[in-house]
């Protein structure tokens, strides 16, 4: 029990993003096979799995880094083809990769607007951009940065993560993909980022978060999806899991010695 694709419990109209039979192979290597997954508006869905389980392959497919070999992607019930990161951004899907891709030598405002600066008659409209930046940060309850004109290189890890997330959501994104947002962060920084994830979801933004840290996952996730060797082995609300069952799913892909709380859900 528990192996193969799990039951999809949401109907299409309810889900923001849907995947059906999504597969990706690189030559003979099958990185992701026959994955079904639904992401609902405003939920925090944690995607967990061991290294090489296909988590990155999955998010890069959604983010438009590459096209799937087979399968379909639905956005608000309609089938979509995401060919480039720009396609994903146009739909309202923003991705924050682990390296954040921030420019340390630019300030927060400049980073937030990089690549889509506001101009008036060809001249950068700094004041307009700074006002919106401050508002975005305030909306996300990011209060620890002193000034929106601080250089990003002078920020802490958690603040940098916050800037990267704020940049992602500023363009009216409806879904944010976070790749290992708490890796390499200290305890209080991690707490800041988890708080940020909760704020996002409370504003109706769907968050798909990849994490190795089960403590963080249990702290913020509404649902958990587990991948194992390229396949989606289990999806369910957070209540279905405890640490032991999550670890077992991550490491073996099955629940042979079924955990107490999980067996009922399956």
């Amino acid at each position, binding site marked *: 029990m528990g192996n193969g694709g799990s039951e999809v419990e949401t109907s299409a109209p309810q889900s923001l993003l849907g995947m059906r039979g999504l597969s990706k192979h690189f030559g003979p290597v099958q990185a992701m096979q026959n994955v079904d997954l639904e992401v609902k508006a405003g939920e925090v869905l944690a995607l967990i799995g061991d290294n090489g389980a296909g988590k990155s392959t999955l998010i890069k497919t959604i983010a438009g880094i590459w096209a799937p070999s087979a399968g379909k992607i639905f956005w608000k019930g309609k089938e979509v083809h995401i060919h480039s*990161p*720009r396609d994903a951004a146009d739909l309202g899907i923003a991705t924050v*990769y682990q*390296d*954040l*891709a*921030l*420019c*340390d*030598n*630019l300030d927060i405002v*400049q980073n937030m607007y*990089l*690549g*889509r*600066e506001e*101009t008036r008659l*060809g*001249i*950068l409209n700094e*004041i307009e951009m*700074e*006002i919106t930046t*401050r*508002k975005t*940060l*305030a909306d996300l*309850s*990011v*209060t620890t*940065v*002193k*000034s*929106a*004109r601080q*250089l990003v*290189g*002078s920020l802490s890890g958690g603040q940098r993560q916050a800037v990267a997330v704020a940049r992602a959501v500023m363009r009216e994104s409806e879904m944010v993909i976070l790749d290992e947002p708490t890796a390499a962060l200290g305890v209080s920084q991690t707490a800041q980022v988890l708080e940020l994830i909760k704020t996002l979801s409370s504003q109706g933004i769907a968050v798909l978060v990849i994490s190795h840290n089960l403590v963080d996952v249990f702290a913020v996730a509404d649902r958990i999806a587990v991948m194992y060797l390229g396949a989606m082995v289990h999806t369910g609300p957070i209540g279905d899991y405890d640490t032991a069952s999550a670890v077992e799913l991550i490491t073996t892909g099955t629940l042979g010695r079924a955990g107490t709380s999980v067996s009922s859900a399956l």
Partner: protein
Amino acid sequence: MSISHEQGPTPGPAAPGATLSNVKSQLKTLWQGDTGLVPVLLGLLVLVIYFQIRSSVFLSAGNLTNLFTQATIFVLLGMAEVWLLLLGDIDLSLGYVMGLSAAIATILVDNQFHLSWILAMLVAVGVSTFIGFLHGTIVIRLRLPSFIVTLAGLLVWEGVMIWTIDSNGSGGTIALNEKVMYDLVSGQLTVLVTWVFVLVLVAFMGYSMVRTYQKRLASGLDVKPFYFIIVKVVVLAIAGIVMVLVFNANRGSFTVIRGMPFAVPIDFAVLGGGSFLLTKTRPGRYLYAIGGNSEGARRAGVNVNRYRLMAFMLAGFTAGIAGLLYASRLGGISDGVDGGNLVLLAVASAVIGGCSLYGGRGRMIHAVIGGVVIATVYNGMALVGIATSAQYIVTGLVLLAAVSVDSLARRGNTMLR
């Protein structure tokens, strides 16, 4: 001051208590300024005082004017390098690109071709820009380090320059006989126009600072204390008036020569145009972004290759302008131009001024200040009678000090720009 809107009155400078630490931090901000220029300017002041003590003619109007025209080449070529240093790139061939531009302009206004000065200048600068385009294209398409490509360029364009001069002149030199081009450096504004130029410039800078302050205040954004602006405007005004007095003093020995040399407004024009592009427009912003994190810029949707190519072309363009002034200063062109040495001094100018060699940090004004520092060292040591060999050594040590500061700043305080 906090980002959050809920917070009431921000703990600004007006808040009672905590005054001493506030004043301290404000002084620190003033010291670092927007650009961290104050330490370099103090260094320059020390040099000036030393040379004046050693030689009483150093601060004479004639010598200072000469110093500014000497600095023009370092300044312009330094600004050319800033475009590329911002990306962490470099163009080692710009000295000879400048020489070639000078040669082309000189030859084209000659009796043989007798093109108008404006056309000759356009062709010369056009060729320099095209050379920048070539370098950029090779660097980007073949993914080679700019250091190597332009090292090859240094040899190639030296050859092309010598060939151009030798096949059009005799004895390896061509004299410049065209009035307008000759006057680029040697000609001057009238006394009145010098005053108007400097005062309008200071007034404009003050006006734009106040306007920005008011706009930010009206939008509810953080502002630095207003007296920062007053201090800046006063400093600028004093510097401007001193400049005018120097340029407007009679520096001729037999005839009366007064007024600002044309070279100075040309420097200001390039400085203003370059700074505007770098700080007020998207392309400028992207140069900083690429220099800071080119992968990040690419993922943010910046066409990295396009802007890198633009930087190479702007470097060529600026070096072309430097060539026009070089020809004017020499009164012609010689095939003995030491473009290799000049380009190193140009890079040194930018770095001494505060531009980073690692990319992402630097301004046009850095090349101007650095260029003036180098010209001061050369001019002062020549006046004092120190041998050329020692001049090289001292310039080298100044450069080493500047690079060390750059490197330490990079490792330490990321707030430095």
